[in-house]
């Protein structure tokens, strides 16, 4: 694979005078520079089909490639597949890239794709992303062509295949690794694993045989710094060059610091406060609407998120494909809320408990909501559950109200709506509000099974209006990614799904 023209990394740039280096941030510091990245936890496994947690994805995405990926603007660009065609409603054919080598020196072929997809489908952790694909309908056409088929039409299939969890793995490498598959990643990506001190840091090294433009920095180290404040301090004191997930209250510290840059953009995440729609009085839409009116979301965004992100108008963030851009957030109007409650038959309010897990932000939200609801006569209290019980008990429907978040990783409305609002998805599967509306089910099914863009769009526009109106949630907040970087860093780009590719990152002087 030819080296890209332009800056030859072999050329010593470190000899530039220091003062100029400050200006010319893009100049590579030196050949063996290490970029340190801090995130809030360590990767759990480096097997893409192992765990689907953010921290792991953020590391793996540097080492593994998917067939195709979505840009931040939701356009599909080729990675390991160079082109794809919809053969019929149920089948897509992929042409694979030629001359790609795995980190272990093997050639990348159609067999790997077949193996990887089947393996992903079987994986308990990531299987649900691709389980609409029929494993028997994954066919190798020739060494560089693969067909993928579903049993029913599935609109967002490409989006799902772009999910970083559906990365390609090498059959031989996986088999050779045996029990160690989680710690011996073999991908095709721009970086390969150098060393992993589990719990502490992961060191990556440039893959010089990368099929595309090689990474600009030779080494990247992901450090696990769990305390938010510490990540900021590490960034300030030069211990790391890039810090992910800056706490909202640290925004000003980075913005005010001449040596640092805050990179921020909306992401695909949403935070919501769900009702238990199967339980009195939350089974009444009026009650749910009233509560939506009773919560001053601007205050929450200000107090809890320090103005970071946006208050949510509906179930999807505006950057998600098929998001309804016309939805209006519920107006804060406690008087109206009281009236509506009275109409619904609760003039004196009632008792309710808001559940959260031990997440500080959610607790803060709950505290405020709890307080605001008391002002319209609802005697709200809050209870913090340990994560395990929290998930179990909300899945079992034992709650009144609960706070959770959701990230529409694929950037597609289906991913952001189906599991959460379809009545087939009660409980564990995602619909913890036990919200059921036949029309919504119908529309979600259309959106999912149609492969016609326009049909899907229409269905999603309507369904979002209904959901907003029915208000199984208090629509709370659409998230924003905050990453702090040193000014020495250039080439860092966000991605709304949260996993940032770092191969363009350069550490300057």
């Amino acid at each position, binding site marked *: 694979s030819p080296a890209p023209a332009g800056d030859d990394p072999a050329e010593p740039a470190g000899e530039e005078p220091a003062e100029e280096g400050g200006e010319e941030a893009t100049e590579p510091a030196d050949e063996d520079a290490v970029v340190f990245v801090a995130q809030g936890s360590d990767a759990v496994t480096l097997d893409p089909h192992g765990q689907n947690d953010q921290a792991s994805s953020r590391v793996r995405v540097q080492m593994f490639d998917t067939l195709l990926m979505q840009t931040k603007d939701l356009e599909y660009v080729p990675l390991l597949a160079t082109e794809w065609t919809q053969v019929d409603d149920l089948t897509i054919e992929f042409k694979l890239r030629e001359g790609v080598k795995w980190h272990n020196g093997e050639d990348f072929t159609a067999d790997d794709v077949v193996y990887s997809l089947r393996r992903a489908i079987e994986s308990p952790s990531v299987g649900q992303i691709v389980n609409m694909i029929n494993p028997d309908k994954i066919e190798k056409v020739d060494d560089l062509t693969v067909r993928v088929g579903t049993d029913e039409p599935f609109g967002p299939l490409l989006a799902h295949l772009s999910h970083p969890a559906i990365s390609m793995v090498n059959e031989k490498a996986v088999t050779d690794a045996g029990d160690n598959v989680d710690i011996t990643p073999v991908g095709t990506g721009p970086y390969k694993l150098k060393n992993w001190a589990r719990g502490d840091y992961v060191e990556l090294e440039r893959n010089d045989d990368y099929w595309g433009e090689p990474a600009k920095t030779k080494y990247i180290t992901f450090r696990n710094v769990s305390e*938010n*404040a510490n990540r900021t301090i590490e960034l300030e004191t030069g211990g790391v060059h890039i810090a992910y997930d800056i*706490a909202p*209250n640290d925004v000003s*510290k980075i913005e005010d610091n001449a040596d640092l840059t805050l990179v921020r953009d909306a992401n695909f995440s949403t935070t919501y406060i769900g009702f238990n729609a199967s339980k009195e009085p939350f089974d009444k839409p009026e009650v749910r609407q009233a509560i939506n009116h009773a919560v001053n979301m601007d*205050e929450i965004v*200000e*107090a809890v998120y320090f103005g970071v992100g946006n208050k949510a108008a509906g179930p999807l963030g505006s950057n998600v494909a098929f998001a309804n851009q016309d939805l209006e957030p519920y107006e804060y109007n406690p008087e109206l809320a009281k009236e509506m409650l009275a109409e619904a038959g609760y003039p004196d309010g009632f008792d309710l408990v808001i559940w959260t897990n*031990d*997440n*500080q932000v959610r*607790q*803060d939200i*709950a*505290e*405020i909501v*709890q*307080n605001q609801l008391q002002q319209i006569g609802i005697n709200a209290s*809050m*209870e*913090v*559950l*340990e994560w*395990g*019980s929290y998930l179990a008990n909300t899945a079992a429907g034992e709650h009144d109200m609960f706070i959770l978040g959701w990230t529409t990783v694929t950037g597609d409305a289906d991913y952001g709506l189906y599991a959460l609002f379809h009545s087939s998805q009660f409980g564990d599967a995602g619909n913890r509000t036990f919200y059921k509306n036949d029309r919504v089910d119908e529309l979600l099914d259309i959106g999912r099974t149609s492969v016609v863009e326009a049909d899907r769009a229409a269905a999603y526009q309507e369904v979002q209006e209904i959901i907003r109106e029915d208000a199984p949630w208090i629509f709370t907040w659409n998230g924003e990614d905050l990453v702090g970087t040193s000014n020495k860093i250039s080439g860092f780009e966000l991605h709304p799904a949260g996993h940032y590719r770092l191969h363009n990152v350069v550490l300057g002087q």
Partner: protein
Amino acid sequence: MAKNVATASASAPVVADKKRNQWKEVWRRLKQNKMAMLGLGILVFMVIIALSADLLFPKGFDDQMISRRFQLPNSEYWFGTDNLGRGILDRMVHGARVSLSIGLFAVTISIVFGGLLGAMAGFYGGKVDNIIMRSLDVLLAIPSILLAISIVSALGGGLFNVMLAVGISSIPGYARIVRASVITLKGQEFIEAARAIGASDKRIILRHIIPNALAPIIVQGTLGVAGAILSAAGLSFIGLGLAPPNPEWGAMLSGGRQFIRDHWPMTLFPGLAIMITIFALNLLGDGLRDALDPKLRN
């Protein structure tokens, strides 16, 4: 005959006419210890404040107003306000109840169970002793904070569970202390004397062993309250403490930690409150140790 032998004593030692209580004696000694009295004073002050929280600080602990958040100490909010605009002092004063009662109840739990187990082990010895102490060894081998974390994560948070967790995790310590003092006491001649006049096991335990084993327990208990408050704070830090908006000091401290650089009152005051309380408890504990130490008698 016998009488004239004895009563001829001109310079008798300290002798009182009215009924005297030995606790008064302890109190007298304690009063001489300035540091211990300082500790006691601080604690009494805290308890009084905590009990009269509703009267003194009627705003309560959940008087939010986002617009007045992050105020520095001022004439209305002596300790400033927190991230939701609540008075830090108001919260701390109401929180004193929670924190102090966590300490108190947790220690009560561990004293009651630890004391019972330790007394049984020490008094009966042999197999009973072996079984109890070996089981407690097992408990001791699990770090107490981990034990507490596991218990809270098993039972869920909440005041009672936190107290229970902290209490259970310090049972082995008390059991050992009680056992040690029971064993020492058991060998004392006055226990044998009680047997000789026909006292039952029950009477011996209740009348002779427990009152005498009390001193180290009281000392340890005082220090234990301090330990329990710290443990509860640690649990809050891990996110397993008391649910907000309950203003437990440890929860306030760990909740405020994200603002430690932006708004110092949120961590400083609860931190100081914890520190001063524990400081006071330690002073009192050390003082009690001296006041109760029979070696220093006479």
